[in-house]
């Protein structure tokens, strides 16, 4: 999972000791978030302790992978050559059922159809042999 020299044209995550379990879980097609062993808080991005109670007793635990779109933008300008073919591409902020918000790309939907509050669910995008991204798609009516 090292930042090897490959053909993946987009920015890779900056791996650290803190966030490595998150990215390794995605490669197993598991969506996980940290959880506090004292107060049960869930949060993102990864932190070395519970932001609420500062407990160090924290664990990576499965998360629902479900949430709602809280806001979104559409990029019309080129910033990364690896994204150029997808312009205009969306970036959405998804509020997970567990509370944290994360940034992602919405798939399976046209940009014009994105709405605030729409229900979405995680989809595992195997972007490169050693890199799986958590993207989101509109949640199917009967899950």
């Amino acid at each position, binding site marked *: 999972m090292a930042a090897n020299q490959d053909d993946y044209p*987009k*920015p*890779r*995550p*900056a791996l*650290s000791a*803190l966030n490595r379990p998150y990215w390794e879980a995605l490669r197993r097609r598991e969506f996980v978030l940290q959880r506090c062993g004292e107060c049960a808080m869930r*949060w*993102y*991005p*990864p*932190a070395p302790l519970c*932001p609420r109670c500062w407990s160090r007793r924290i664990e990576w635990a499965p998360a629902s992978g479900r949430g709602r779109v*809280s*806001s*979104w*933008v*559409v*990029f*019309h*300008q080129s*910033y*990364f*050559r690896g*994204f150029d073919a*997808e312009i*205009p*591409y969306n*970036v959405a*902020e998804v*509020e997970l059922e567990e509370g*944290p*918000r994360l*940034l*992602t*790309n919405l798939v399976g939907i046209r940009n014009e159809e994105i709405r*605030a509050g729409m229900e979405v669910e995680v989809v595992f995008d195997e972007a490169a042999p050693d890199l799986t*991204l958590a993207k989101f798609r509109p949640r199917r009516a009967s899950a």
Partner: protein
Amino acid sequence: MPPFELKDRAAIAGAGASAYGRRLMRSAIDLAADAIAAALDDAGLARERLDGMIVTFGSPIGADADTLAQVLNLKLRAYNQTWAHGRFTASAIQWAALMVAGGMADYVACLASVSFSGLRRPMMGGAGDSEGGREAGGSHGEDPVFGMTSPGAGAALVARRYFERYGATSAQLAAIPVAFRKHAALNPAAIMREPFSVGDHQASRFVCEPLHLLDYCLINDGAACVIVTSAERARDLRKPPVYIAGMQPLPAGREEFIWAYPGFGVAQQSVFDYEPGEQPVYRMAGVGPRDIDALFTYDAFSILAWIALERFGFCQPGEAAAFTQAGRIELGGALPMNVNGGLLSEAHIMGWNHQVEIVRQLRGECGPRQVAGAKVIQWANAYGDSLIYHR
């Protein structure tokens, strides 16, 4: 009670700037030298007297304080600087006021100098996105893995949420850049001086939707500087002092996102109805929003003006879209804003050009764009800090 009262203890004694331009092809140090010399001359102060400096927006884009001291052959007793980020203007002036009150320095040059044309590659946005590369993500919401990059994208996220939450529109938001461009048309130093209409704004291309090109500030070269000293010393210098009556520091935390007030629900903010409550800057200065003759704000993106107005209680959350229509924020309106043209049209000198304009307005030096009878002017920002100046 604080151990000592800072209200009106410090003042701006001089203000100066370099030329501003899109591509001056001059270095940040070169431009900073012009701004510092102009500010010292404005104050009537010999450079040997300058013994403190605070630089915001240092490496890798700006001119660093230690380098400037060496190049300009200054003997600084005290200096400080921030990382290359725009939000620290009020902080620098507040620290300078503390420095002079505490005797650490007598005359503190506070400035930023930028030379975007001198950069080999962009630092914010795209492949050189060092903000997005920070350990827990960028402070404007950058996440390059998903193509989320540049400060403007974080502002676009706020704008979309604002539109959805309050039913406001991009055409209403156009009132901000349209007003500031009208002001810039009266300012010979401004880079962009040709007025445009709401229709022109709507027709300008999207950069990061819902923000149009004309919602974005300039990327440019230039430097601006003010000299902070004690009120007593300032009274002995060339120009009338501009007193610093109120200060509100820059907050941080999970409920703070740089482009939104708490409760807005972006990044990791909770969602609740924000109430401005009593802002410390008004209590310290002994005035309220209705006493403000002109308001200046960090307008890197037009939406930030709405957020600042609501954050400080000029209007209620959700009301800024209507509040800013019909000329209210234009010269001659009830609350003129950014009468220099702002970052959107004068120049993006990290808010230092605004400080220079505030000083000149309070001295009555601004000719056709002078706010008649201006006595109290506020600098107040979407990210929560503020200064109140008076003559």
